[in-house]
């Protein structure tokens, strides 16, 4: 249905944008092991994005590439968090921490979706996201408890990222309509908060006291960052419309 398509776009666009961001690190990470690790995460995310976008494309008679390369900015459905700039390694890790905890809770429920395709994609993705969650949690501990400098940066990275968390947990009409085919975002807040709370306790970190930013990504209202990301991501495909690669 059109509603499932819309929902699949949200899930696919989230992962696509974050994969695009993470790809930047490959060849620039603090150590070779992280070129590999961040590359793995980006690859997993692009895999999830392809599954969700292909599924959405079925309903629209479009390919995953039509959707990734030939939609304009307001047609994307990603939340703002996924498009946030990489910043330094700590900021990237902060974003990854929040995303992976959110996605883990989401997929571990979505695998019971009444929509069998969504359920199948989620069942596969949840195992990978579990590793992402572990990767970012370990880094949060290292950075928060490592040196003064790394602690300062970890705190700053969390602070810059925190305003974009709230949007992840906002319900809307689409969610009401989809019923048990989708996962209700607001139900994910408590489990995510509780896991983060125990990690933060171990890392001696506080929840940043910063106001939430207004989102709107689910309805095509994006931050100023997305335009640049799309200009770069789509440039070649758009230069050769109709070509195959």
């Amino acid at each position, binding site marked *: 249905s059109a509603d499932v398509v819309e929902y699949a776009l949200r899930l696919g666009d989230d992962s696509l944008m974050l994969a695009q961001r993470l790809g930047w690190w*490959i060849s620039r990470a603090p150590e*070779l092991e992280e070129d*590999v690790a961040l590359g*793995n995460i980006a690859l997993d995310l692009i895999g999830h994005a392809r599954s969700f976008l292909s599924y959405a494309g079925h309903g629209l008679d479009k390919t*995953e590439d039509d959707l*990734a390369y030939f939609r304009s900015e307001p047609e994307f459905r990603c939340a703002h968090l996924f498009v946030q700039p990489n910043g330094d390694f700590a900021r990237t890790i902060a974003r990854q921490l929040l995303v992976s905890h959110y996605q883990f809770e989401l997929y571990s429920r979505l695998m019971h979706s009444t929509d069998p395709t969504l359920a199948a994609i989620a069942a596969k993705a949840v195992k990978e996201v579990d590793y992402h969650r572990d990767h970012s949690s370990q880094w949060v501990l290292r*950075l928060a408890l*490592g040196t003064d400098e790394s602690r300062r940066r970890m705190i700053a990275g969390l602070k810059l990222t925190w305003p974009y968390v709230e949007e992840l947990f906002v319900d809307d009409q689409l969610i009401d309509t989809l019923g048990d085919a989708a996962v209700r975002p607001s139900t994910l807040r408590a489990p995510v908060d509780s896991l983060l709370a125990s990690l933060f306790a171990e890392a001696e970190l506080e929840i940043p006291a910063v106001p939430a930013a207004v989102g709107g990504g689910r309805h095509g209202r994006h931050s100023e960052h997305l335009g640049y990301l799309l200009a*770069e991501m789509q440039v070649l*495909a758009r230069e050769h419309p109709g070509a195959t690669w």
Partner: protein
Amino acid sequence: QAGREQFDRLISEDSRIEPRDWMPEAYRKTLARQISQHAHSEIIGMQPEANWISRAPSLKRKAILMAKVQDEAGHGLYLYSAAETLGTPRDKMTEDLIAGKARYSSIFNYPAVTWADMGAIGWLVDGAAIANQVPLCRASYGPYGRAMVRICKEESFHQRQGFEILLELANGTPAQKEMAQDAVNRWYAPALMMFGPPDDDSPNSKQSMAWNIKRFSNDELRSRFVGMMVEQVKVLGLTLPDDQIRFNEDTQQWEHAPLDWDEFKEVLAGRGPCNAQRMERRREAHEDGAWVREAAAAYADKRATAAAQQKAA
């Protein structure tokens, strides 16, 4: 003395030297230089391809390219480990690279300016690398040979992907085909030069061959490579920018047009299009990552101390 005899015997039997075995200082040095140079090439070689990850024109190609560049980081890791068995720590090798004291393959000082370069690098550059490396799987130094086995397997996969990129372009729109031919034109000669200078200008080759590190001469490998490419380019429906390729029945070798070794030396001396850019990027990544590595080390120390205290208590 016993060590020397054992070493000579192992070499003459074409057996493997292992890290704990005695080895001549020159053998150790030659290998350490060659393996670390090879590792650096993997790491610097990530850059031209990383340049197209964000702009890859389909999601499938984006994923394949990401995986490839990531594999190169992995190859760097195996090779640094192999080099470490000869006594040089990874940090030291990295510092030498950053300081401009260590070399890496000159080919990565050319820019990857179009998507077709992802094809040409895979097909020609990885192709040349494989031709060079397959014999190294039998290199006399055990850790090097074993690393090469693993790497060669992945490289052939990469080469096939490069070939597929070019094939798709060559069968695509006229603009795509032109892009593919242009990339082949630009990467062909630098790829041939990857085998190193002509045999009469390659003073160290002989010793490396005596030590069973090298198995074939530069020109032999180059000739064999040209022979493979000249067949494959027909399948692509493209041409190589060299009208002098022919098989010499007398020598049983493929011949090609003379290469511009002056350009090769210029690029080797730092005057290629991207030498400065490649070094800067590596230095920047290394320096920007210093605080992360320090944090990880400090955290590991704290954990170790805490564990020790717990044990003592």
